[in-house]
């Protein structure tokens, strides 16, 4: 091929391939847009569209917290601080402090995994911007509260039962293969809620 022919061939190739690309671009004028307008132009809140396993800002349901300190030990960056006192006479465990520093938190989910009742769990909330670092430390205990004692049968307290149901659903997500599409074998990841851990916590006191 002569130099002149190659020159014009290059120009022809360039123009045709550009038009091939432009045809793809033009075809997208006819398609549905993929982008989503954030935050206020969709019918439901973004938080409600997130999947169940989404790891957002941590929340604690103190009503079902057994004070076993499993989450505090699992946290690799120590952003959870819990203080528990056990009354030697009445044997009641009291939680006097439960703080989560959500600035330090890296949303890894390692704390919610060992929780026997699902008290500490990730919410679908992710908008956490604030004006001061102090207000970013979530303090869940205002007045000292008695730790939850898991019962043998189903929960009878009407106030706590729905919270525990929510928590146990969260635990079941980690119970391997529980809700799998082909019905995998259930591994006892969430066996005996609280029983061992509470003793362990008591031993630590």
């Amino acid at each position, binding site marked *: 091929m002569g130099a002149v022919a190659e020159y014009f061939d*290059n120009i022809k*190739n*360039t123009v045709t*391939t*550009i038009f*091939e*690309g432009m*045809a*793809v*671009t033009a075809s997208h004028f006819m398609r549905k847009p*993929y982008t989503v307008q954030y935050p206020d132009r969709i019918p439901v809140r973004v938080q409600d569209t*997130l*999947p*169940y*396993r*989404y*790891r957002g800002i941590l929340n604690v349901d103190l009503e079902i917290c057994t004070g076993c300190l499993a989450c505090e030990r*699992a*946290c*690799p*960056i120590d952003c959870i601080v819990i203080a528990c006192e056990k009354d030697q006479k009445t044997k009641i465990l009291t939680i006097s402090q439960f703080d989560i520093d959500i600035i330090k938190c*890296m*949303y*890894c*989910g*390692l704390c919610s*995994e*060992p929780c026997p009742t699902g008290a500490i769990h*990730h919410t679908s909330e992710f908008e956490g911007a604030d004006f001061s670092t102090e207000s970013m430390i979530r303090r869940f205990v205002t007045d000292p509260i008695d730790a939850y004692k898991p019962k043998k049968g189903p929960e009878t307290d009407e106030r706590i039962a729905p919270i525990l149901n929510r928590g146990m659903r969260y635990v079941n*997500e*980690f119970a*391997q*293969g*529980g*809700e*799998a*599409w*082909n*019905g*995998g*074998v259930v*591994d006892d*990841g969430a066996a005996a809620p609280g029983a061992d851990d509470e003793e362990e916590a008591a031993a630590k006191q």
Partner: protein
Amino acid sequence: MSTLRTEEMTLNMGPQHPSTHGVLRFIVRADGEVMREAIPDVGYLHRSIEKIAEKVGYHGFMPYTDRVDYVCAMFTNQGWGMASEKLANIQVPKRGEYCRAIATEFNRLASHLLSVGTMGMDIGAMTPFTHAIREREMINDLIEELCGARLTFNYMRIGGVAWDLPPGWREKALAYLDHFEPILDEYNALISYNKIYIERLANVGIISADEAVNYNLVGPNLRGSGIKWDIRKDLPYSVYSEFDFDVPVGKGEWGKLGDAMDRYMVRIRELKESVKILRQALKQIPAGPVLAKVPRNFKPPAGECQIRVESARGDMGWYAVSDGTGYPWRVHVRTGSFAAMGIIQKLSQGLMIADLVTLIASLDVIAPEIDR
């Protein structure tokens, strides 16, 4: 004219240059527009991740491995999981291995899509980037449903994976693959076979097969030079020996073998191979548990181990030494991006400054992976 004094100019490209793929600096000695050499200056993103491992223990280190290479965090997860399992001699359940393979291959798709997308953007084609990112977002949505995060997954655990596939996820994944394959052809029509694009990439940064081996390149950079070496195929780990897939290599169709275009096309072809693997994995996945019994207080016996994972950026090595306590004595990560930095000084000699961007993009370096 010969009396005019000319001198070399020293330029700093980066660390905040938008096309250096992270905080990465090049000291460029240039004569006009032609580079004498470009010396990569790494270390801006050093976060002592290897040292952190010695402080947080085996389970606690898993979320940190996400930060080694945040574009394909599944592979770093898997690397650390496999290293710990090898130390303690733990057998991962079959379904767990399949979940791992599915998650990592989806992550490879996401990583390669980002790579080929930014390749176009770095040399001035903005549209392909938005197309690649659109498909990557859908993968992110799938992975978000699988493990709850879009970038720092922390999906794997020592002994398997944290969660099983959610109900209905498999159908969604298969539907995505059906959607993805025609899109890949569309993507090729949009940019890969564009004459201007080919002219920008062909014959730039040619790495011969010998050079690629001598400079210890791995992954698509090595395969772009025509060497068929893939850890998944040659040293099979996990369940990769059960899948039927090809290892694409550069052929030098548009220029000399081992140029930037070859490395780009290897990634495009690997996308197709990953789709192939994913289809087989989603079809063959057995029932069963996904996580082996591993104590919370994990203390592997004293010893050392080295494992290799084929990450999206190539052969990733994890070396761990245990002294029998709950904390690893030493952890070292060997990553593909760091190896790729070594050859830039040599390749840049005589290259135009504008082609340096092409070279970096074609090597697909990720700054946090270089420094850890």
